[in-house]
């Protein structure tokens, strides 16, 4: 008997013409892992949220079809279903409701009105299962991304659900954090819990031996898209020397790092969360001044550039596209950057956003927003492009689009610094790799990954995460 089953499930949102899900049927047994695969907008999250009851209870929609839990129709109500289906969301921040790890894990059982002794027992079991017992008294805001996601998982486990629903749980995690989460999940599967995941990438999930349910057909990425220019040389577009930085009360980052990036070169930056990758990009952009050391971009100190000068020299794409979008329409985003009408039309066409030029940028899908921020960064014709996790939350099609723009920029002589946890993609694009960890490595891509392999840090090598479709 299936622990969770959906039969001929259709979901239509009032604001959309096309149904988000159309007569989808799938089931999941206890001790089984099922992955919902498909491109952005194919309905993966919609299916999870509908199974949980959040749609239509929290988000109005027309829902047809049946949802069965343990072979019987699921009773309506998000709270009732939440006892049997534990949810872990994509954004590690979104799953946390309290200020301390132990309180977070206790939150669900407290809402169920359980006895204090039962709550304590469940909290203890969930903390042990996720390896979080040593962090039980830590403030939730002080946790790393991986720790936050494990806390969200522990909070779901404390409800002792029959099935775990996970919406791209590794999207924001570094390779080690993702690996730790998957290890915990494999333990849950062994213990007989069903696991239903929405995920773009199947490669990292191979250890869970999942059954794949495709919600649409996704074309494989062709490697020729990623040909960058031959290993370039010449005067450095980016020159960083003896960089050191620390946040108040934090450890020193970067440890006297020195490197240069030539025009047309793609430098991949890899490392665990908190190793200073995003800080490095902020230093290169001139948004933060280093404690020690110097940064030169195009021969100039980026921190001393006037805003308009910086825009012409450095383009930056941040992790969350919505942080970079300010104007009331897509077209006005280009006007804001003083991009000519011709150039705007060209970029809108390339980003497949022509039909959406009058839309509010925050109404776009996450893939469309990413294409827009990439287009805005490149339309300014920068000499240096700084990219902070541009593939987060992107399906294969959008990830390929972003990768193509990076390779084009490289061929046009733009120096690119690319921070990404999507190691197979990064390995195909980068001429050299900078690994920020306990030991720093800098060198040609193959050599750095070879060194990490020899050090036993396979989790930071592309083979470990190679996407197998």
């Amino acid at each position, binding site marked *: 008997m299936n622990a969770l089953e959906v039969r001929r499930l259709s979901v239509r949102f009032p604001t959309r013409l096309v149904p988000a899900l159309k007569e989808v049927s799938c089931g999941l047994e206890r001790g089984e892992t099922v992955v919902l695969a498909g491109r952005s907008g194919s309905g993966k999250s919609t299916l999870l949220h509908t199974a949980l009851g959040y749609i239509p209870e929290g988000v109005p929609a027309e829902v047809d079809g049946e949802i069965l839990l343990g072979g019987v129709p699921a009773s309506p109500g998000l709270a009732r279903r939440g006892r049997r289906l534990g949810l872990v969301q994509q954004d590690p921040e979104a799953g946390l409701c309290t200020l301390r790890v132990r309180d977070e894990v206790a939150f669900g059982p407290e*809402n169920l009105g359980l006895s204090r002794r039962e709550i304590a027992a469940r909290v203890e079991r969930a903390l042990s299962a996720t390896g979080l017992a040593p962090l039980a008294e830590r403030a939730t805001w002080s946790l790393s991304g991986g720790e936050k996601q494990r806390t969200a998982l522990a909070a779901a486990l404390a409800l002792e659900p029959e099935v775990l629903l996970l919406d791209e749980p590794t999207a924001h995690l570094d390779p080690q954090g993702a690996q730790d989460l998957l290890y915990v999940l494999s333990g849950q599967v062994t213990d007989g819990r069903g696991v239903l995941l929405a995920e773009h990438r199947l490669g990292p999930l191979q250890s869970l031996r999942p059954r794949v349910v495709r919600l649409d057909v996704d074309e494989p990425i062709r490697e020729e898209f990623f040909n960058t220019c031959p290993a370039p040389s010449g005067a450095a577009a980016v020159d960083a020397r003896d960089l050191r930085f620390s946040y108040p009360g934090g450890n020193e980052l970067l440890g006297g790092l020195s490197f240069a990036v030539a025009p047309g070169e793609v430098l991949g930056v890899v490392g665990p969360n908190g190793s200073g990758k995003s800080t490095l990009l902020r230093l290169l952009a001139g948004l933060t001044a280093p404690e020690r050391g110097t940064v030169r971009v195009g021969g100039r100190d980026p921190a001393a550039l006037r805003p308009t000068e910086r825009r012409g020299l450095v383009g930056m794409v941040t992790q969350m596209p919505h942080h970079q979008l300010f104007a009331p329409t897509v077209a006005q985003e280009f006007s804001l*950057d003083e991009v000519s009408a011709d150039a705007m039309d060209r970029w809108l066409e390339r980003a497949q956003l022509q039909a959406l030029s009058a839309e509010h940028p925050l109404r776009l899908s996450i893939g469309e927003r990413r294409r827009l921020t990439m287009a805005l960064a490149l339309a300014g014709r920068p000499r240096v492009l700084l990219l902070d996790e541009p593939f987060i939350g992107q399906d294969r099609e959008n990830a390929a689009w972003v990768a193509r723009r990076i390779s084009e920029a490289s061929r046009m002589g733009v120096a690119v610094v690319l921070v990404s946890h999507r190691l197979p993609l990064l390995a195909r694009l980068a001429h050299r790799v900078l690994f920020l960890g306990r030991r720093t490595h800098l060198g040609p891509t193959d050599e750095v990954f070879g060194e990490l392999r020899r050090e036993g840090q396979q989790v930071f090598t592309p083979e470990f995460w190679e996407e197998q479709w």
Partner: protein
Amino acid sequence: MVVRLRARERVVWSVERAQRTTFHPLAKFALLCAHAAAVLSAPGLAAKGALALIPLVIGGKRLARRRAFRAAVTFGGFLFVLQAVVVSGSTVAALGPLTVTAEGLRMGGEMALRFLGVLGGSLLFVATTRPEEFASALSESRLPYRYTYVLVLALRFLPLFRNEYLRVREAQRMRGLRLRPWRLASHVKWTVLPVLASALTRAEGVALAMQARGFGALRRRTTLTETPWTLKDSLIMGLTCLVLALVGWFASGGAAWWP
């Protein structure tokens, strides 16, 4: 395995009990309110000074080391200096074009002590009370937990909003957007709306996480942390009543406040 788990549970219980603060959060809150009323209504510098010192004496280094307390002392000093040179009256000293008056010194001193007394008490309360503990105590006192939990959520979102704000400002700098501090409409358009949009997305995620874990489904919820009312708390409430009665009596002209 069962025996080991039970042993662990006992450890958890002892940890939870050890973490309980000395007094019930509601008793502390009542005393905080009474102290604030006394500080605000006490006439004269000496009375205000004595009352403002109480939180510092109780909190000691724990309070003095807090960045917020140091900021409060700085701001209190600023208020004192400002009043001393702005309020007109009999001149005590002249510093270039500025004159320090006796009335200014008295008013500045009173204002600074009022500020430090109320803020010091509040900071001591915050330093000794976990928000979840306070929210649980409010719920136990029959207030609907949906409302009392707002306090925890507010504190949960503060660092998040700050972070979102910083990211948006950085993105503005990268795109060459320069906002003049006095152009409020520009700030609303270019900063407040993006931060709000981002915050609403986050809030939606948190709301989903809370509902999916049964928040609001039952009329009453239980708590992991125990907050029992003890004799000490009754004594604190007695002290609170006494302070409030004295404040009321003196405020209605019962007697002079200070010898």
